[in-house]
């Protein structure tokens, strides 16, 4: 059942949160061994929360807009006393002493967190294949990846194990797995959602957002988690936007730019669905124009210098001293090195080294410095595009879900999975992936709607038009 209907029924006392949770747990029990979606299922915690929601309803109190809704959490979100690994050996067994703001807000709205989902190690990857605890399988075709890095969260919603899930999106890690699993994923404007309690990957890019089976559910979830948080100094000093009330605004009179760089190189089945989406928006009253934004082609290169540079700094904290695992050695430096060498997987090592190199003396200007200037150019290019149109349209990912091992030998091929999603992160703007039609092997295709900062209401209304038309 979708989240909005479930919460409405729980609030009216027609169904209990405990019943909804039992259904969620039974879906997890049925397929988690096969799909490896959850790294940790917090049965006791979830049952206690569900009972608290039911007690509130019985006592005539309103548990909130997400009353009794089972939610899944990407395992890079800290949950006090509940294991949080970021899918890395280096944090295996760690129980955080505090809870992420987004999780507190979900719980305050009546939601029931059921567990922690698998991801690419420290969110570095596009398939969950870099997880230290094995890949997640796509519920629609277990021979294929669910996308990544938030692959477990996307799979949990697609498999009916949770009604909603949270992920994080640094270069596409919500939108790409949403597309590959046939659900809705939102990358909110940078700063809209607090990151207090999110394990940092690349701090100028990371943003938390929702996965849902409907646009309306995604809008409701985003309303609940958004809004200023004094514990995150990068959080926008403003309240959460009103999104659900704008869902039926439609696209009449909207100008939509179909961007050639956001379909360039995509498979023919993906391009066909983007074209069909453009036609659907036109049929709903939008005016679609074709645009070229050549600066978007520079996004991938800039991203794979900026994100690793920030990661190399953020991941310096994993030194075996304060949390997580320690590999013993008789001297501090040797302990640090042994801990990091055995604690990190290959992709994390690659990115740490790439970032260290891009920031090192003699290369800083040529790599990191140049990438930061490209970022300025990209922001300016988007700004100019939004003088002509209200929204941009393109593909979310270049292909439908791919098979395991297809891209693991060649890191650059894997990085290209994010080529259409990265520019939004570099610009700090908002984008939504919405399922629209199917392609090869009957697998779902996601189309991407992009807008300037704080355009979530407009984007979700347009996504709703596509949801109805698909």
């Amino acid at each position: 059942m979708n989240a909005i209907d479930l919460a409405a029924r729980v609030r009216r006392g027609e169904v209990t949160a405990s019943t909804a949770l039992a259904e969620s747990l039974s879906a997890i029990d049925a397929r988690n061994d096969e799909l490896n979606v959850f790294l940790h299922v917090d049965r006791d915690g979830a049952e206690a929360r569900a009972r608290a929601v039911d007690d509130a309803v019985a006592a005539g109190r309103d548990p909130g807009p997400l009353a009794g809704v089972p939610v899944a959490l990407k395992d890079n979100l800290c949950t006090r006393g509940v294991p949080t690994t970021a899918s890395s050996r280096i944090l295996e067994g760690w129980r955080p002493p505090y809870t992420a703001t987004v999780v507190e807000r979900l719980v305050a709205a009546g939601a029931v967190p059921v567990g922690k989902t698998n991801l690419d190690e420290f969110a570095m990857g596009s398939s969950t294949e870099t997880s230290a605890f094995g890949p997640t399988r796509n519920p629609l075709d277990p021979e294929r990846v669910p996308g990544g890095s938030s692959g477990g969260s996307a799979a949990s919603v697609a498999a009916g194990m949770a009604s909603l899930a949270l992920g994080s999106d640094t270069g596409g890690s919500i939108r790409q797995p949403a597309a590959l699993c046939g659900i809705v994923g939102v990358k909110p404007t940078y700063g809209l959602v607090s990151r207090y309690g999110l394990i940092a990957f690349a701090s100028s890019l990371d943003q938390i957002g929702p996965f849902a089976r409907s646009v309306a559910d995604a809008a409701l979830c985003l309303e609940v988690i958004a809004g200023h948080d004094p514990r995150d100094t990068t959080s926008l000093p403003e309240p959460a936007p009103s999104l659900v009330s704008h869902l039926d605004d439609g696209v009449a009179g909207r100008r939509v730019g179909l961007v050639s760089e956001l379909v360039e190189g995509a498979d023919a089945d993906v391009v066909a669905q983007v074209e069909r989406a453009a036609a659907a928006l036109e049929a709903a009253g939008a005016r679609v124009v074709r645009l070229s934004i050549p600066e978007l082609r520079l996004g991938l290169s800039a991203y794979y210098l900026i994100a690793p540079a920030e990661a190399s700094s953020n991941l310096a904290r994993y030194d075996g001293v304060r949390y997580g695992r320690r590999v013993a050695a008789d001297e501090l430096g040797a302990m640090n090195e042994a801990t990091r060498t055995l604690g990190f997987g290959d992709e994390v090592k690659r990115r740490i080294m790439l970032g260290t190199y891009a920031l090192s003396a003699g290369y800083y200007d040529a790599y990191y410095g140049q990438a930061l200037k490209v970022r300025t150019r990209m922001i300016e290019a988007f700004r100019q595009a939004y003088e002509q149109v209200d929204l941009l349209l393109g593909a979310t990912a270049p292909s439908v879900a791919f098979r395991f091992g297809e891209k693991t030998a060649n890191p650059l091929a894997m990085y290209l999975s994010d080529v259409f999603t990265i520019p939004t992160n570099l610009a700090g703007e908002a984008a939504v992936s919405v399922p629209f039609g199917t392609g090869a092997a009957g697998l779902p295709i996601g189309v991407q709607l992009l807008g300037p900062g704080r355009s979530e209401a407009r984007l979700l209304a347009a996504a709703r038009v596509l949801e109805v038309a698909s």
Partner: protein
Amino acid sequence: MSGLSRDEVAHVAHLARLHLSEDELTTFTEQLGQVLAHAADLQSLDLTGVPPTAHPFDLRNVVRPDVVGESLDPAEVLAEAPDAEDGRFAVPRILGEDL
């Protein structure tokens, strides 16, 4: 071609406190070279006069009122540390230190 050498990768690994085997050094040198070669498209751009963007929006000097708030429980934090002693994180000997 980025010209990234095996020695440079070894040096960067050392800076990042990572130990690489000879085989890993070979693989990583090749893979990192490919990524840097892709990034070479940035180097040919003339970006003279373009200011760098390190952060998507211009927030500066974010401060909060200086009031005592809730803090983490030290015992709960130290319980999750690999080693602790007398209310502090404990580490092995630091190089050259006389005990």
